[in-house]
């Protein structure tokens, strides 16, 4: 029971537990905060996989930027607690329509994946320890993957413009009809 095994199970348990609580919470703010906790555990798992750069980027981008965006939107919309027109005490597998399908699908999915992966051949331990340095990633990113890199920057620009336009309060077309 090396320290790495303990760390893996600890982080894995936190990630799974936090994710389960995310989808079980009524209050959206608690969901966002629990997801941040899950991302922190995932960041720890990346460190265990000798990927410190990805671990830190996970915290900076996901936990530090995307989740702040979610939190802002939840606060500004004063997101109401989920109102339910079904009895919340009914088990998810017995609820109507898409919920029943979804819960069932996820359950089947988990079982199937577990079965498939547990039957697979034992891959053995990871090959020799090598912490990927940032310079390796940087070199690869700017030479082999230069085109996707540039396209991603255009994608982010488009997303920025789109988000600003979509969230604008006055739609120009609405103005012409009324006052």
């Amino acid at each position, binding site marked *: 029971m090396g320290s790495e095994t303990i760390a893996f199970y600890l982080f894995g348990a936190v990630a799974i537990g936090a994710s389960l609580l995310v989808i079980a919470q009524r209050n959206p*703010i608690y969901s966002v905060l629990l997801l941040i906790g899950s991302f922190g555990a995932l960041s720890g798992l990346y460190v265990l996989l000798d990927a410190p750069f990805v671990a830190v980027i996970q915290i900076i981008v996901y936990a530090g930027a995307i989740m702040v965006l979610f939190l802002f939107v939840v606060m500004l919309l004063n997101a109401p607690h989920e109102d339910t027109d079904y009895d919340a005490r009914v088990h998810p597998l017995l609820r109507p329509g898409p919920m029943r399908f979804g819960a069932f699908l996820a359950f089947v999915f988990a079982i199937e994946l577990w079965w498939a992966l547990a039957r697979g051949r034992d891959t053995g331990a990871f090959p020799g320890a090598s912490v990927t340095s940032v310079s390796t990633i940087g070199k690869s990113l700017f030479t082999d993957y230069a085109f996707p890199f540039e396209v991603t920057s255009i994608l982010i620009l488009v997303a920025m413009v789109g988000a600003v336009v979509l969230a604008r309060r006055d739609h120009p077309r609405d103005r012409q009809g009324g006052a």
Partner: protein
Amino acid sequence: MTPLLIAQIVLTLFVFVMLLNSAAIMVYVERKVAALLQQRLGPYLVGPKGLLQPIADVVKLMFKEELRPRAADPLLFALAPIISATAAFAAFAVVPFGASTTFFGLLSEPLKLQVADVNVAVLVIFAIASMGVYGIVLAGWSSNSKYSLLGGLRSSAQMISYELSYGMALASVLLIGNSLSLTDLVNGQSGTWFGFIPRWFLFLQPVGFLIFLTAGVAETNRAPFDFPEAEQELVAGYHTEYSSMSFAMFFLAEYINMVTVSAVATDLYLGGWHGPLLPESLGWVWFLIKVAALLFFYVWMRWTLPRYRYDQLMAFGWKILLPLSVLNLLATAAGVLYFGL
């Protein structure tokens, strides 16, 4: 339990205690310097020259009643100052403050004067600064009061806006320093040009230094960027509803953030612990002097400059500071490419 491990644990505790002390010292320094700038005396009753004033402040805060508004969310209300203070302390964990030392031969191998030597230290500081935003935004939200909510949202929007310029200034230094580890960056600044100008990155990156300090002041919500907690406009912003030790934790978080930004600026631009006249093992003395100079600059700015209005603040961050930092990055890249810095 090798001696090195014991020394490491002692060092961690020492850094923690010293950060607490630094917050207390900053309380005194701020009030005294503010007083002298405003031509009055400041604290002088408690202890000689008022030096025991921070202790009186801490005792007062400890004895105050711990309030919680009835409509506040209890879990988040209690969690917010903890997040702020934890992020503030954690950011200092990767900052080196002296050369490796063997404590006059007591240890068999040198101990780095750093709680954790991570080879992506610069990014870790950036990441933990991003986490510090949550303490503020949760404080504003959970207090369930309009002053707190406005203050919290404005404060966090300001912090995430200035993080971009902060990161770009950092990136410019990384181009010259060729490493993400703070220890390597400091060691790249040892030695001198022409025998008397130290090889600080400040001289290679003057604009970058100014951008970094400005963004750092905005990140720590200090004047002239402290509109979100401005006394006249927003009562006390996001920490309006807090009292006693929760308020003390926000205060603590603010001062320790100041110390961390000054320490990182010292390591990145002012040569860290390298300085003339002292041997390498006493480098932390120079480090303290440089950090103290930057902290004095912080306090000086607060009591000299008028406060920015919120829209001016955001316009400055996005329309002036960010393009300037991008231009700085481009110029640095060109310089490294053509002059081989």
